[in-house]
């Protein structure tokens, strides 16, 4: 388990070792969504807001 500092509120975000690139995690303090940009090294950024839309 790694600890990461939330770029929004500075709170701690615990990140498991099995996270996947692109996975969305939620900051337990401020609730903001964070995207796993890379796993080696672990890098999280604020996730873009994505509205739902669908193809066929």
């Amino acid at each position, binding site marked *: 388990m790694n600890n990461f500092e939330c770029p929004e509120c500075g709170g701690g975000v615990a990140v498991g070792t099995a996270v996947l690139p692109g996975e*969305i995690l939620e900051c337990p303090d401020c609730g903001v969504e964070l995207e*796993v940009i890379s796993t080696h090294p672990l890098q999280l950024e604020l*996730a873009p807001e*994505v509205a*739902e*839309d*669908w*193809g*066929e």
Partner: protein
Amino acid sequence: MIVIKIGGSEGIDYEAVCGDVAQLVREGQRVVLVHGGSHLTNQVALALGHPPQFVTSPSGYTSRLTDRATLEIFEMVYCGQVNKNIVERLQRRGVNAVGLSGLDGRLWQGSRKAVIKVVENGRTRLIRDNLTGRVEQVNTALLTGLLHNGFVPVLTPPAISYDGEAMNVDGDRAAAATAVALGATELLILSNVPGLLRHFPDESSLIRQLAADEIESVAQSHAQGRMRIKLLGAQEALQGGVRHVILGDARGERPVLRALDGVGTVIG
């Protein structure tokens, strides 16, 4: 004006659909056809060694994951085999059908979704470079020109982004956008089920009538899989001024005429 969406699942009777369309056209009705092709696309993709992948959004909608190779297979089947097959069936019946994709003449234009959010095994993640989007503008000048000159448009995804890229769009919602843009009175969405089922797959549990303001609650409680997107398309059509949306069965005889007689789920 009637817009008819024919699904692309297994069991669709294209021959019967085209027979009904020919009859309507002979009677002076103006008709626009929109079609799918998902079942055949899956088969061709498998045969070409590029198996289809589907993803589920956080609110439970499924759609095809579309990379460039998938999009090209999609075009081969939708714009090629399925579209030309329907055009041929209509031409054989004396209907002057014209097959177009949403790319042609920027018929269906909209925003591409470069990033989508999906849920896999309970984990949410973002997928980039997906070639999907949503129809926001319909080239009505092109369609009314064709209709005015006696042609029957046969339309298929993909659509085109504002940047000129082909993108996979949902056919039911594209049909709804087309019906709204053309001021159609009826939108028929025909597939391989009798309509909206209260207890899928029990076909005897057909819901025959639905008010427009019931769509959202029913979509949550009774609709599964692609049926939820059909209901979303129905809602968009009704909000845009279409009088009735009918979810009908494209298997068996007289599928279009039966739906117009109210056989299926009549919404609105």
